[in-house]
């Protein structure tokens, strides 16, 4: 039963990790754009939520209404006026620019909010839980997080495959020059993609802030988990990202359980080992194989 519990808690943790990785997966899938500031953007969103909830005196859930559109706007503008200039066959400029952005965000947060840890208090839902058969207690909040992650990822996948705009995204991704000939402004498409990516990372950041405490320099640690989820799941596949997040979450909680039972290696290490195993034995990711790049 203890192992079943570990798996259930891991599935829920996986939801948060997948939501985290969504923006990264989307930006890379559509534009081959590696965003090293991804984790810092999540932390930035959480800090913005601290200001919004503090300023308006509302539950952090309401701050989603302000922070998510605000971050989406920032994403649109950044892509339109900064990131687009770095796009091209050479990946280095975009990596350098987002790396710089990561440093800027961390230091700006340090300056503005000090190095103190912050938290978002979501109220009683944080500790409320429901009992599953077999005595496994599941928190409503992790459940909500996992549900939101699934809805966002499934919704995005449907959006990409079913809508006109999604088709434009895919067309631009496949061949920007031909898409331009068809009347698609690729720079606008890229900006729209980045806006969506920023919106998802803002959501992930808020959930992170409600789940645990965070500080200005916590971004890079989050980024590693997001990268791992994307790689394990398979690059360019949102379904894969969901699966990758879940695999990573479960391997961490089951790893913790192994640590507790057998006193053997630590929990987070198991996630990293799974990541390395994925790179070694299934380099295209769980759902990346057979897909046209």
């Amino acid at each position, binding site marked *: 039963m*203890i192992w079943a*519990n*570990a798996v259930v*808690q*891991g599935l829920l*943790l996986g939801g948060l990790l997948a939501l985290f990785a969504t923006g990264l997966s989307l930006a*890379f899938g559509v534009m*081959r754009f*590696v965003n*090293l500031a991804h984790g810092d953007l999540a932390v930035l969103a959480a800090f913005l939520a601290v200001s919004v909830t503090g300023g308006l005196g509302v539950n952090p859930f309401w701050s989603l209404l302000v922070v998510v559109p605000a971050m989406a706007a920032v994403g649109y503008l950044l892509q339109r006026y900064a990131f687009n200039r770095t796009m091209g*066959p*050479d*990946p280095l400029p975009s*990596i350098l620019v987002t*790396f710089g952005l990561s*440093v800027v965000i*961390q*230091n700006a947060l*340090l*300056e503005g909010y*000090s*190095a*103190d*840890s912050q*938290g978002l208090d979501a109220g009683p839902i*944080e*500790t*409320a*839980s429901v*009992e599953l058969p077999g005595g496994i*207690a599941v*928190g*409503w909040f*992790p459940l909500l997080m996992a549900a939101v992650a699934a809805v966002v990822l499934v919704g995005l996948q449907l959006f990409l495959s079913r809508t006109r705009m999604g088709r434009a995204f895919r067309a631009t991704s496949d061949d920007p020059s031909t898409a331009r000939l068809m009347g698609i402004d690729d720079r606008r498409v890229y900006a729209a993609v980045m806006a969506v990516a920023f919106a998802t990372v803002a959501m992930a950041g808020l959930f992170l802030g409600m*789940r*645990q*405490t965070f*500080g200005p*320099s916590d971004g*890079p*640690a989050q980024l*590693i988990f997001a*990268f791992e989820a*994307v*790689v394990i799941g398979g*690059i360019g596949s949102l379904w894969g990202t969901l699966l990758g997040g879940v695999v990573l*979450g479960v391997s*961490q*909680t089951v790893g*913790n359980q192994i*640590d*507790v039972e057998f*006193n053997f290696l*630590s*929990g*987070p290490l198991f996630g990293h080992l799974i990541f390395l195993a994925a790179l070694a034995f299934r*380099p*295209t990711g769980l759902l990346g194989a057979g*897909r046209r*790049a």
Partner: protein
Amino acid sequence: MKDNRLERLPLAKLSRRRFVGGAAALGLSPVILAACGDDGDGASEPSSGEATTTAAAPTTTAAPSPGGSGDMPEIKIGYVTPRTGPLAPFGEADSFVLGAMAAALGGAVEIADRDCESDSAKAGQATQELISEGAHIILAGGTPDVSVPVAAACDLGEVPCVTTIAPWQPHYLGLGGGLGPDFPEPPVASAWNFHFFWGLEDVISNFIELWEQSGADKVVGGMWPNDPDGNAWGNAAVGFPPALEAAGFTVVDVGRFDLATQDYSAIIGQFKEAGVQIVSGVVPPPVFATFQTQALQQDFNPPVMTMAKALLFPSAVSTYPQGEGLSTEIWWTNRHPFASSVTGQTAAELAAAFEEANGVQWTQPLGFAHAAFEIAVDAARRAGAADRGALNEALGSTSLDTVVGPIDFRAGPVPGVAKTPLVAGQWVAGQRYPLELAVTVNTQLPELAVDATIQPMS
């Protein structure tokens, strides 16, 4: 650039490489960031801002100081503590103490303070800077993560150093001391370091008494993580497990777990299964917040939760899902029957002055930060010269009644360490503040009245 052609190979393969390359670049970021972070707080003028704050508390300056400051040599005191970051609550009283000291000592003493941002590496760097700026004596504290690197840097630079707010074993061992059967005569860890605080033996005896008082089943779940504190507290030879078993407790030790973990369900599951009634350990506040949230989510609500480190400060305890009823060790209260050798204030007066100046509830490091200055000032008076060697010698023969109790560096459990009395208690709903510390165990300090007996949380 010339490689562009090559990049048009099958995309799936290439993009993966590019992607992973990005991930590898991540590894660089902490190094570069650490290098960038230092410029911000560089040459800060020592506490000039704070001095004005406490000039408003005239009782501080008016109080006649025993011995006066006339025979004080002009010395420069360096002060390194965590004022921001996860350990920030340990430094919450600093600005007040620095201001009060500047006001009480006048021009005789120059104080240069540094925020180590809860970072061991920065604590060491800041100490080196202070040494090269000519500090005659360095004061530091706030967990072994700060006290050890500062003391190590002082040892290297041959500057006397007074540290506190870290149990003496992790500090002493971290600095290169030796304990146990291999060391019949405990060695000198550093000839330049003087540490005052309590030790593991004190927290163990206090916790045991607290738990026996609670009447809870004697099954203890131990959360001792993989960090300097956790390794010492969970040590199978000198830590909690052997002492608890000797006292008739069953210990459920989850092992030295990784503080980076994001999920505590494995630990919670093990505690539930073993019927743990008492949860104990030494974890930082963010970890305890996540742990308690998940424990409540998973219907684990033991009657006693006694944590070191996480439950010391009202600011932290009030952010937990259930703060009331948590129990902890207590190093100092505003009822302690001691007075300052510099300002003459009693513990109660010192705490009241802090509350008046800062508008927040008193916190335990206040007494110890104040006492560190008392020790430095006393040594300076006896040394009679602004000389590092003479100051160090004077520190070694310290025997002083401070606001946290008598400090005697000649007596110590090991060379260079003096112990202060430790008591224990519980956070209860208060009259002046939402949560106040009630003393429930006072064996080491019978002069301090007990406020209540411990009440179960559930």
